[in-house]
């Protein structure tokens, strides 16, 4: 049996249905969640393996409306990653509710929002026109805001409101960009626009439209000058929510931006360099802020800002470079995205575990954890291996490919950025480790956590490292520098 569009439809809507079910009866045991939600990543894996004979694509006619979709290797990989991380986060949430006191209603609301988030992300991965992308982006954004607000205290409310206002304005910027594109091209499907863009010179209207689309996406993706909402929102959010948000939600905006850029302005070198420079500033600024952060969750959130900056290096390395360079940069980008998603989810969970059992919020409160909570601290360290780009992790492989691509294309600037970024991440990670290895701290009362919560984080951190060892397998599904 080979995959059909009906299977895709099932995988899109099954998480939402499960989420609504869990809204009525919120689960309190990880085993139940595992049993019910395990088919989702398995189906996603089956879809990926069923793509042997080329990508699937099609159209869905709803009355006068035509929607375009497409499932290629990249989309299937990202979908699999999404389902795995959502499952991990759901398992963690079921343990989290037993160790903390969460509001009953707020906890019930977590599940439908998670289902909506899965639907939105799935739509984004398989969309091939701007209308579906818009619908997916908005659904994802609203669900993400809702999840961030669940704690319900004043701090979370202010941070969430700021996030909401940013996201709403970002979506209007994006809609304005679509309006202009529609005026210039008269169509919304990406394949058709890419076909026209490859023969025509880019006109100013398209450039303005892509600039507007890009600023909307940078706003939603927390990329450098527009990142100010990210750290406060993570400071107060629940740990499983932070893990999904840092791992997936901000990546989706980057994915759309790269997709549109490759389709509409593949040769715009100046714009690509501008995005690359923004990314470099993000790497440096995020690293410095993570170094200076007071709380552990803020540190992890600022490190997301920095790590997203690396992804932006894809733009200059893909625009107008030779095929070999572009291939390396292309593979490095997706490897970094997947590796960082796994490692960041692991790191948020490990940080959450440390904070939960010490009851502290500041870094200084972690003293003595090296003896009492070795497993969580080890998970944190293993996740940090990927973030710092040490071998054999996915982060190392990605940075190695980027280094080669920058040297081969003569873009020396990115070598400096990569080196400085790794140095900064080493500094902030060792700041955490130094605090936790202080031995002469006053004895504190540590709470013991369920073993499951620590194991999920550990598995994710090990997966990020394993992805570096077995990078050949996922990369074999990627089309050589995909033009949609």
């Amino acid at each position: 049996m080979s995959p059909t569009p009906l299977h895709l439809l099932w995988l899109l809507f099954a998480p939402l249905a499960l989420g609504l079910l869990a809204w009525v009866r919120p689960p309190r045991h990880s085993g139940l969640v595992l049993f019910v939600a395990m088919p989702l990543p398995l189906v996603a894996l089956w879809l990926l393996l069923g793509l042997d004979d080329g990508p699937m694509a099609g159209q869905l006619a709803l009355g006068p409306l035509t929607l375009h979709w497409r499932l290629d290797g990249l989309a299937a990989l990202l979908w699999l990653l999404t389902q795995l991380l959502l499952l991990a986060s759901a398992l963690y949430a079921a343990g989290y509710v037993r160790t903390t006191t969460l509001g009953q209603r707020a906890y019930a609301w977590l599940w439908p929002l998670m289902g909506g988030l899965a639907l939105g992300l799935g739509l984004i991965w398989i969309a091939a026109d701007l209308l579906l992308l818009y619908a997916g982006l908005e659904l994802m954004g609203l669900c993400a805001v809702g999840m961030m607000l669940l704690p319900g205290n004043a701090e979370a409310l202010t941070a969430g409101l700021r996030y909401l206002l940013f996201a709403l304005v970002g979506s209007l910027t994006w809609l304005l960009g679509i309006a202009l594109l529609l005026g210039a091209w008269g169509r919304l499907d990406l394949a058709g626009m890419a076909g026209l863009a490859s023969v025509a010179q880019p006109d100013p209207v398209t450039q303005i439209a892509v600039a507007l689309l890009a600023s909307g996406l940078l706003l939603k993706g927390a990329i450098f000058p527009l990142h100010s909402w990210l750290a406060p929102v993570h400071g107060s959010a629940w740990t499983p929510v932070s893990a999904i948000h840092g791992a997936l939600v901000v990546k989706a905006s980057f994915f759309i931006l790269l997709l549109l850029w490759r389709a509409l302005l593949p040769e715009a070198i100046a714009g690509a360099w501008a995005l690359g420079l923004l990314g470099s500033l993000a790497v440096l600024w995020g690293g410095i802020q993570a170094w200076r952060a007071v709380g552990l969750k803020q540190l992890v959130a600022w490190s997301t800002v920095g790590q997203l900056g690396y992804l932006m290096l894809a733009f200059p390395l893909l625009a107008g470079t030779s095929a070999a360079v572009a291939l390396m940069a292309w593979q490095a980008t997706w490897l970094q995205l997947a590796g960082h998603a796994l490692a960041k989810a692991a790191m948020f969970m490990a940080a959450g575990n440390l904070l939960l059992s010490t009851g502290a919020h500041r870094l200084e409160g972690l003293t003595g954890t090296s003896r009492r909570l070795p497993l969580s601290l080890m998970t944190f360290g293993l996740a940090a291996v990927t973030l710092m780009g040490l071998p054999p992790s996915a982060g190392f492989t990605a940075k190695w490919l980027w280094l080669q691509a920058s040297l081969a294309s003569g873009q020396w600037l990115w070598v400096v950025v990569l080196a400085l970024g790794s140095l900064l991440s080493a500094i902030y990670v060792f700041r955490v480790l130094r605090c936790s290895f202080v031995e002469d701290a006053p004895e504190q009362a540590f709470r013991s956590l369920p073993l499951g919560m620590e194991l999920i984080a550990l598995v994710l951190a090990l997966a990020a490292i394993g992805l570096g060892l077995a990078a050949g397998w996922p990369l074999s599904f990627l089309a050589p520098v995909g033009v949609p």
Partner: protein
Amino acid sequence: MTIAPAAVSAAAWVLVSLLLFLAGFCLLHRNLWRACQGFVAFALLMSLAWLVLGSPWLALAEALLGALLTGGTLLWTLRGRGALPRLAPVDETPRRARLSAPLRWLLILSWLGLSGVALVMLLGLDALSPPTSTSTLLTATGVLIMGLGLWAFSAQRHLLRRLLAFNLLGSGVFLLLAGVAAPVPVSMIAHLEPAPIAEVRALIFIGLVVALLGSVLGAALLLQLHAQAGQVTLTPMAPRHPGR
């Protein structure tokens, strides 16, 4: 029912000036109750504008989602029900500090400048000065409404007013979207397909739903925030705000 072209034009000018007046009223009035009522009237006029542009379903959606539900939510937020304390009906918060004004204006002007330039290139200068058809007139109005909305969104602090400003900004974007895509655009690219009207309506419909959900969420949060911390702005140190 057909109306003579000249009559459409005069009615359209009246519609546009009313739209602009209500947008300004709703953004500038410090009495929030009045401002929200102004927004309901604005949304009803927008619905009339969709009817003039020939999309009755969109008109229905705007009346239902925009005027009834979004406007109703905002008014309900002010009246306050249940245990949560009421918001003060008059906005007493000062505008943003002058320190960040140049940056703000730079952003607003670049947004308006970019969309204006793109509009002129898409529709041609001849069609815009003066506007030759109802749809170009409404498109140009959309740019002005966007300008008002952007200014209010960035200058004001009261969260309810910022939600109003966001809704107006959205309406401006919708008008522009309908205007650039509805007529056959004068463009450099020769092989154009007929304008995808159904897609445009779907985009605007999703936009209306998002605006409604965003407003409902924002209003609910504002009430919670007001109840917990006594603040109606994002930054807690709003001066002279009476704690309840």
